[in-house]
């Protein structure tokens, strides 16, 4: 099955530092989406990157996609304590998303 698997599972950094999270998947995709989830809350959509795109930016977020390696990365620059959350990649082929296990990011003030 096509699954996004994030790495690392947990990441702790200081405010102001950059955070990089990686995602690997197994099969061909149409797009890959990144979501944030605060504890016990809903999934907030961050970025969608299409299979023909290599890089995408949104504010302090930068997402890359390497379809040859079946991997994506999410970079959060100049992190803030409010960025503390779990981050998931989700791969989509049809209209179904397959989520990874997520990276728990802790940003210390």
């Amino acid at each position, binding site marked *: 099955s096509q699954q996004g698997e994030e790495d690392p599972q947990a990441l702790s950094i200081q405010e102001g530092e950059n955070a990089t999270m990686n995602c690997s998947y197994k099969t061909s995709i149409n797009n890959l989406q990144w979501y944030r989830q605060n504890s016990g*809350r809903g*999934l907030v959509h961050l970025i*969608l990157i299409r299979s023909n795109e290599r890089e995408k930016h949104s504010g302090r977020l930068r997402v890359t996609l390497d379809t040859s390696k079946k991997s994506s990365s999410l970079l959060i620059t100049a992190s803030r304590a409010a960025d503390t959350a779990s981050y998931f990649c989700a791969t989509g082929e049809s209209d179904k*998303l397959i*989520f*990874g296990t997520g990276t728990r990011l802790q940003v210390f003030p």
Partner: protein
Amino acid sequence: EPEVTQTPSHQVTQMGQEVILRCVPISNHLYFYWYRQILGQKVEFLVSFYNNEISEKSEIFDDQFSVERPDGSNFTLKIRSTKLEDSAMYFCASSGGPLTGNTIYFGEGSWLTVV
């Protein structure tokens, strides 16, 4: 900004009881979904719904589950006879489909606890 809304936010129910979770997808969206997340586990796909019918469902979505779009705005998930293992956060989601880039937007979720 348009959002997916879900009710109730929390529900506690006894095993064997029927539960209906309600969702109002984003207006003008055409694709609707239910996902669930058991505490501490991955978000799992349950079902997708388009053009008034189920387009895809997972193994989890057995005969105890059903979905309905009773009117032009609501989208519901019914669990006929709840089991302890149905305890989870249930997320409704919607998408405008390919014309809007296939971005899928999620609601805040409904916590279901089966006791």
